[in-house]
């Protein structure tokens, strides 16, 4: 007896159609799974057998062969359990096989026959839609997520028994009561920040133009606290963006919720992270922190502590907004359009500029060299974070996230209108050619740039960075043209490495 069930494997971030073929024939009882299955898939044998029996079905005492086709595609994870169980029951005539033709089946089984949620439901649902199937069976907890795909009949099942009822066309179980994900209660807001006016201003500029930022300041001064509030002033996720984010987070299992991710992600990997942990990798390429931060913020605290290999690996993601991972024959293209916020101590001991700093000139030079390099080229703003004075802590907060966010949204709108028809969507993405055509510089406004350049305090790359930031400052002020004042303000954010001549470095 033969049966077929369609399910999907996740390859990078892409759903790939997998047909579970099953052959049940007389012989010594056995249960074999073939088709480049990894350990978690091969272990499905034990889970499926127990679940089928515990759910009150009969497990055929025959020779069972399961093939996961196409045979060349590497399959991993427990999401095949439900499809395999389904195929066995259909082959044994315990489920209506014809109903299975309309559905893709996806889920993990518990030994007692319950269906457990597993990551990637949204991607699988998208795959089902694309493959022309009319419906999908997913774990009950993942119904809202799969329903994000339009024109697809999503059936949630809590047990193997539910699945049988769904296929027979009987009543479907209702997804358990759940609340739509709201903005989390402990929402981080700039209104909680006392002092740090300069840094908040810089973060607003960064958010408005999509610029990457380097925060430099002693330990414990509030760099992380400030960076965590950056998502709160970024424009809200658009639906298409939210679906991208949900898909990635669901596949990685970084998202325990239900339905759409509404908040921009904030990822803060520890500095011991490996290059593949940061940008993605593995024998079956899977997304890394850079992809988890897609459409959100990637925060690298203690930038100089990250391995050089990890930082080098960030170059392509920063440059292109995606990363191409090649492992063996497999190529995965993972989206990585995030804002980078890096934080560093101003010196190895962390106490500069106070008198407590015990670092020598050589220490400082080493520290600076560690920070320099191609990654810094992609960081438009350098911002010093200082310990606020005591009076600052007592003063009412200067602004709130809502107020700054409105300014950011207005500035972004101007950019989108101006950059329409180009490859860029925000100022930070303007390359040198776009800077020439889309900057709208007022005549003579660039004089301060020449002055700084002549004094050796600005490099050619630094000039481009300054122009991009100046454009954003003008956008925040709602001005068409970039004026001298905007350029001067932008120069204040230029990198320290350029401000310190080699002579005393």
């Amino acid at each position, binding site marked *: 007896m033969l049966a077929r069930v369609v399910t999907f494997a996740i390859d990078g971030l892409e759903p790939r159609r997998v047909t579970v073929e099953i052959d049940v024939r007389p012989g010594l009882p056995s249960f074999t799974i073939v088709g480049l299955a990894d350990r978690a898939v091969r272990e499905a044998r034990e889970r499926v057998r127990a679940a089928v029996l515990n759910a009150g079905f009969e497990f055929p005492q025959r020779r069972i062969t399961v093939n996961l086709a196409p045979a060349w595609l590497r399959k991993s994870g427990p999401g095949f359990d439900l499809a395999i169980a389904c195929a066995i029951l259909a082959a044994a005539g315990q489920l209506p096989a014809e109903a299975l033709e309309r559905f893709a089946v996806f889920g993990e089984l518990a030994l007692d026959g319950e269906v457990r949620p597993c990551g990637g439901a949204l991607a699988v649902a998208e795959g089902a839609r694309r493959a022309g199937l009319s419906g999908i069976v997913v774990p009950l907890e993942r119904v809202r997520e799969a329903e994000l795909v339009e024109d697809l009949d999503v059936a949630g099942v809590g047990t193997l028994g539910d699945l049988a009822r769904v296929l027979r066309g009987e009543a479907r179980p209702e997804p358990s009561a759940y609340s739509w994900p709201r903005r989390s209660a402990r929402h981080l807001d700039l209104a909680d920040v006392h002092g740090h006016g300069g840094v*908040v201003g810089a973060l607003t500029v960064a958010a408005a133009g999509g610029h990457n930022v380097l925060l*430099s300041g002693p330990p414990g001064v509030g760099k992380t606290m400030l960076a965590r509030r950056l998502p709160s002033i970024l424009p809200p996720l658009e639906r298409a963006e939210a679906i991208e984010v949900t898909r990635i987070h669901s596949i990685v299992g970084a998202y325990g919720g239900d339905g759409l991710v509404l908040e921009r992600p904030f990822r803060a990997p520890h500095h011991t992270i490996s290059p593949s942990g940061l940008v993605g990798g593995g024998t079956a390429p899977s997304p890394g922190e850079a992809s988890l931060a897609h459409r959100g913020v990637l925060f690298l605290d203690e930038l100089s502590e990250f391995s050089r290999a990890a930082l080098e690996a960030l170059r392509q993601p920063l440059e292109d907004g995606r990363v191409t991972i090649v492992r063996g024959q497999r190529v995965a293209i993972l989206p990585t359009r995030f804002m980078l916020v890096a934080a560093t101590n101003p010196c190895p001991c962390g106490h500069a500029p106070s008198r407590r700093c015990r670092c*020598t000139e050589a220490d400082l030079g080493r520290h600076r060299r560690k920070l320099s390099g191609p990654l810094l080229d992609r960081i438009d703003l350098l911002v010093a974070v200082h310990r606020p004075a005591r009076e600052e802590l007592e003063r009412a907060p200067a602004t709130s996230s809502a107020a700054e966010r409105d300014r950011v949204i207005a500035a972004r709108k101007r950019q989108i209108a101006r950059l329409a028809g180009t490859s860029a969507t925000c100022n930070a993405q303007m390359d040198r050619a776009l800077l020439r055509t889309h900057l709208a510089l007022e005549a003579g406004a660039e004089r301060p740039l020449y002055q700084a350049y002549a004094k050796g305090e600005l490099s050619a790359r630094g000039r481009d960075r300054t122009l991009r930031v100046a454009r954003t400052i003008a956008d925040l002020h709602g001005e068409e043209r970039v004026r001298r004042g905007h350029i001067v303000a932008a120069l204040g954010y230029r990198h320290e490495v350029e401000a310190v001549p080699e002579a005393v470095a």
Partner: protein
Amino acid sequence: MSAACDSCLRRSWLVARLAGRIELARHERRPLREILALSNDRLLDGVGGDARARIAVELEELDTAELRLAADVAGLEVVCQHGAGYPARLLDLADAPAALWIAGGCDRLSTLVGGDVEDGPRSVAVVGTRRASAEGLEVARALGRGLAVAGVTVVSGMALGIDSGAHAGALEGGGRTVAVLAGGADVPYPRTKAMLYAEIGGVGCVVSEMPPGMRPFAWCFPARNRTIAALSHMTVVVEAASRSGSLITAELAADLGREVGAVPGAVLSWRAQGANALLRDGATLVRGVRDVLDAVVGVVAEREEMARDLALEPRLRDTLEAVSGGADTVAALAHTPGEAERALATLTELELLGLVRRAPAGRYVAVTP
């Protein structure tokens, strides 16, 4: 224009040739100044056995034209005790260098440190620890800049830390500076200061008593210090530990009857021990450029800096005053993001005017002319 006589060139060659043996003699606690004051023959006597004869022959057969050619190739000029262009103030040393190899030209050296101590251009040595604090660097740099602007030549050793800070300041102040190296004047030492070396060579001078290409031995540094002390009217120690090479320079300067100054430091800091000890022993207290200028030039007239400040628009002037008064970060100048943006722009304006400078970690420093 190598105005050096053959005998001085031979002497210079011989000292370099025997550098390794001088190093050994130093280990036996022979005072360096006695060794360097020895005549050629006595120096050779210190070499035992066959080597003495061999080196004596080498010295005999030395082709001084080759040495002159080496100087040309390295882009150096060489002057000697007996020739024109040799800084007369060096002759105050009993063990004065026989020859001086100069990057930057002997004419320029004359305008920087020519003549004897009484007449001739004023010059001040600014020296200190290699492991300087950020604050010490700032002081050295301000001294270097202020002195150079006032037309005083800044002499130092181009070492890491204070020395380099002083040179960098002098370069900012117009470039009146002389670096005295322990090794050959064509070899940037330390190597990390290659850029500074090029800048000094461009507008000031780099000098050494060692022939081109020579790598320094340990004894060359105290030897170099005597040249620094002798070239200067005053030696100012910025930061020095209790057993620092800069203290050797200060001691040599005192022996030569030159002024010695020291910048005081926190009593608990190891970096301040040397300078504070000098102060206790009667060195001139140096709080800033003015104190140095008072000592080497006489009381300085109030210069036109006040007038310049008055010409600033109020916004810039207020901020400049605030920065000088210690409110030296954006955080200290502004509260709201809007104020911060304006403060940042104002500071950058001042920076473009050359009135403040950005220091590490987001600090701004008022540039004292």
